[in-house]
């Protein structure tokens, strides 16, 4: 159990910390190097280690984000590929009718002239572009 540090106490500590930081920033490189000479390289090595660990941390976070994005993209594609050719063609015609945006080509508007593979390909592309909402009904 501990008691809460009061606002006044925190402000007092902050003022002291500010004074210490000011002195650290005012010290020249030579003065800091003289302190390293006196204390040893420990502080330098600790900061360098903190940087190495931060590099690993950020790299890991980026990798996890990329993996999550790939998984989301794969999920969208599976939803399209799982459609049978008749349902896929019907779905594409529904999209063309409801969202005749400039991003859709004239060729795609004539869905009846397309092969089954073309229809699935276009749906996959629309899913990638975010035009095909995965929550849209697919079988109505």
């Amino acid at each position: 159990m501990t008691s809460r540090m009061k606002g006044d106490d925190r402000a007092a500590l902050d003022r002291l910390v500010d004074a210490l930081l000011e002195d650290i920033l005012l010290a020249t490189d030579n003065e800091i190097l003289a302190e390293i000479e006196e204390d040893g390289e420990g502080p330098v090595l600790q900061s360098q280690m903190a940087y190495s660990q931060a590099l690993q941390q950020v790299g890991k976070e980026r990798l996890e984000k990329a993996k999550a994005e790939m998984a989301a993209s794969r999920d969208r594609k599976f939803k399209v590929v799982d459609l049978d050719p008749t349902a896929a063609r019907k779905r594409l015609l529904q999209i063309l009718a409801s969202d005749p945006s400039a991003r859709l080509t004239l060729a795609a508007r004539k869905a009846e002239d397309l092969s089954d593979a073309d229809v699935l390909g276009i749906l996959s592309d629309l899913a990638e572009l975010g035009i095909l909402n995965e929550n849209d009904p697919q079988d109505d």
Partner: protein
Amino acid sequence: MLSEKPDDRYLAPHEVKAALEGLSKADHARLQKAAAALTLMTRIEPQDVLQEAFARTLSGERQCPRNLPIVSLLIGVMRSIRSDWVKAAARRRTDISVESEGQNEVIAIADPDNDPETALSVKQMRDRLVALFEDDIEAQTIIEADLEGGPNGEELRELVGLSSTAFNSKRRLIRRRIEKAFHKEFKR
């Protein structure tokens, strides 16, 4: 698709990384000292706050203005992290009512292992710090002025009666003695 135009006021990610890779030995020591100062009398490890500051800067969570030295930026980021962690811990605390000498008193409880703040009052802090400078009345006066929010800068220097050079040396002595007393990495 619209391409995002980079903001010239801030360093690009590759420039941030180059600046961090280029930190000198003195810069790294300065950062560790700043981390130690910022975590003084808390349960936060200097290493943790410094690593998080590097990570936030590397990831782009904190942008680096071109006109700000990277060491100053990192110290600012550490200050902000410390404040975030202390506030987060305060939200996790629970107020409970206890009876003390026939009166109800509300106190806050926290998990002492995870609470970044110590339970030190300003008086306890002052006592511990002043004890470090039993042999130095000028240093004691400066520390008391800092803790009490008394005069600072020129006003404090005049009050203590030191020249500018002697006052700066006294500030340096105070910082060095606190570093050695509270942080093992500054003891050889």
